[in-house]
């Protein structure tokens, strides 16, 4: 049932403007893949090319063993859930679900059975006779997913399907889509700009920027071992801290760097060309620790500028002596007031070093 998708050097150009620059990607059968990236990174364009709604300017798209470049959208075995739901406003929910099957020439009994089954999965049986305008946002979203399910496609595509829902509903629908994936086992591609959705739902995340793949991998792999500064900064909330650093020397054990006016022994060697190279050090807010002797390396005192109490954790926005800004995330509720000075430290093992070109060292 589940289907493999392969992109080979996929290119999309609009006249002279190239939007997608030769993307190679393999999505394994049954995998839940999330395309994530900032606005304009090409994630939706890539999805639409897979769907058949956008012409492929160059490269090859394979679904299983078949080249799909010129195949019409409806013949690719794909169903898509749109950001705006795109429900037909003049048809009842039942007609919305049945429309694709009617177009494909299914018998009435088969249509009834499939619609009933999809309605059952999504618990929308009581809505079947209503028009889309009489539904809430969450209900519309379910109908949109139902319209995809009834067609029993090989691949599901989701184009930012939760971006119009409120925060609570978004969490609920996120779980439901994940459950749906477990139940159906289909290959699914999900586009979002929300890195939390990407982290929580994906088997595989594809981070895109300016029409190029920045990194592909399992969510925690990307979180723990970002391949470049962009991925490091994009995934994680609050964002990773970046501090300018300079390579000092190579001792026998590893390199030392200067950062925030202090020397830090990394305990490992970096793939760098020579001393004095300008670097960027990244450290996640949860890896910056509070306290006098917190962590192997001290960053000294920092002034607390702003405190965010989230209940389960406290987020401090601080400034170091040299003016570098550092966000600190600490478990629990800390009684720290803005303006106070706190000692900060970190473990070099959790530090990420990036070269001038943004690549991890």
């Amino acid at each position, binding site marked *: 049932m589940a289907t493999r998708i392969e992109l080979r050097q996929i290119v999309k150009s609009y006249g002279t403007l190239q939007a997608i620059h030769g993307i190679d990607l393999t999505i394994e059968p049954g995998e839940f893949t999330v395309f994530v990236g900032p606005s304009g990174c090409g994630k939706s364009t890539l999805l639409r090319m897979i*769907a*058949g*709604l956008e012409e492929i300017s160059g490269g090859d798209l394979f679904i299983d063993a078949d080249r799909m470049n010129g195949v*019409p*959208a*409806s013949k690719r075995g*794909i*169903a*898509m859930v*749109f*950001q*705006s*739901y*795109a*429900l*037909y*406003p*003049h048809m009842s929910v039942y007609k919305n679900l049945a*429309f*694709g099957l009617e*177009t*494909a020439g299914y018998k009435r009994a088969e249509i009834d059975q499939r619609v009933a089954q999809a309605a059952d999965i999504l618990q929308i049986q009581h809505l079947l006779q209503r*028009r*889309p*305008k009489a539904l809430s*946002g969450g209900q*519309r979203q379910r109908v949109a997913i139902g*319209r995809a399910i009834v*067609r029993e496609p090989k691949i599901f595509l989701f184009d930012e399907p939760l971006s*119009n829902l409120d925060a609570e509903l978004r969490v609920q629908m996120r779980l439901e889509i994940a459950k749906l994936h477990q139940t159906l086992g289909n290959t699914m591609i999900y586009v979002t700009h929300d890195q939390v959705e990407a982290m929580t739902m994906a088997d595989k995340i594809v981070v895109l920027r300016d029409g190029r793949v920045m990194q592909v991998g399992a969510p925690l792999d990307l979180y723990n071992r970002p391949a470049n500064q962009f991925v490091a900064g994009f995934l994680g909330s609050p964002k990773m801290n970046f501090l300018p650093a300079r390579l000092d020397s190579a001792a026998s054990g590893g390199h030392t760097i200067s950062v925030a006016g202090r020397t830090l022994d990394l305990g490992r060697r970096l793939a760098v060309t020579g001393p004095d190279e300008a670097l960027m050090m990244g450290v996640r807010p949860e890896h910056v620790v509070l306290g006098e002797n917190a962590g192997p390396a001290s960053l000294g005192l920092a002034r607390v500028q702003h405190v965010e109490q989230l209940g389960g954790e406290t987020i401090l926005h601080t400034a170091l002596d040299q003016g570098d800004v550092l966000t600190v995330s600490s478990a629990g509720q800390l009684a720290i007031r803005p303006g106070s000075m706190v000692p900060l430290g970190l473990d070099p093992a959790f530090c990420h070093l990036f070269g001038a070109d943004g690549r991890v060292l």
Partner: protein
Amino acid sequence: MTSSAAAIPAIHQPAERRALWRSILIHALLIGASILMLYPLLWMLSGSVRPQDEIFGSSSLLPSSISFDGFVRGWSGLQVSFGKFFLNSLIIAVLATIGNVVGCSITAFAFARLDFRGRNFWFALMLGTLMLPYHVTLIPQYILFLQIGWVNTFLPLIVPKYLATDAFFIFLMVQFFRGIPRELDEAAMMDGCSPWRIYWKIMLPLSLPVLATAAIFSFIWTWDDFFGPLIYLNDINTYTIQLGLRSFVDSTGQSDWSGLFAMSTLSLIPVFLFFLFFQRLLIEGIATTGLKR
């Protein structure tokens, strides 16, 4: 406390009085303008039921006596019954309206949604025809229809409408179709729809307001058209109402004015009913609320 309470009406009263006077003035102006516009119509209605000699003799709208002789004379006073003219007008107006709505909506769909070579050029060219007066194309058209033997039939008045010759309606529909979210087309494409099925099952049902608008104007303009039938229809059996009405005015003999006004009054009824019926569609137009925007 007391003084401030007393001060409030003092401040408000002149303002209220001003508003009242403004309202009276506006209403008086509007009523006056309405009477001015309705007067010819009321005069015609009055003329259809008043004695023949009183029609041009009195400027009053109220007839001295009411008589429906004009209706009887008008209906059967010509060589052919006026019912025949009604039927002819109805055939031409209904078929032309259907042709306009179908032809223009298909063309508008192509301009709004399909990608084809030179789309913008053809669209601009089509809009350019809006600036062509009817009279410029009249003679070439007449010669064309004469050569294919269509003169003195309804065909020159009906068939061109199926070829989307009304650029104004095409433009109107293109604008409306562009307002329908493209994602609906894309969803339909994913559902396996061809462009034809998208047009028929998605675009048309969502475009009822603009289709109704086109239908109303198309019907009224065709029904009221005098010049087209005058050029192409010679046999009295093929006459439309407008040509029939002209037959009451005889330049050599005596004109039957009350018959003319009576039939003119009757000729307004279908237009009025057509407007009433389709005007509901304009209001009931389906809102595109399936999309969260």
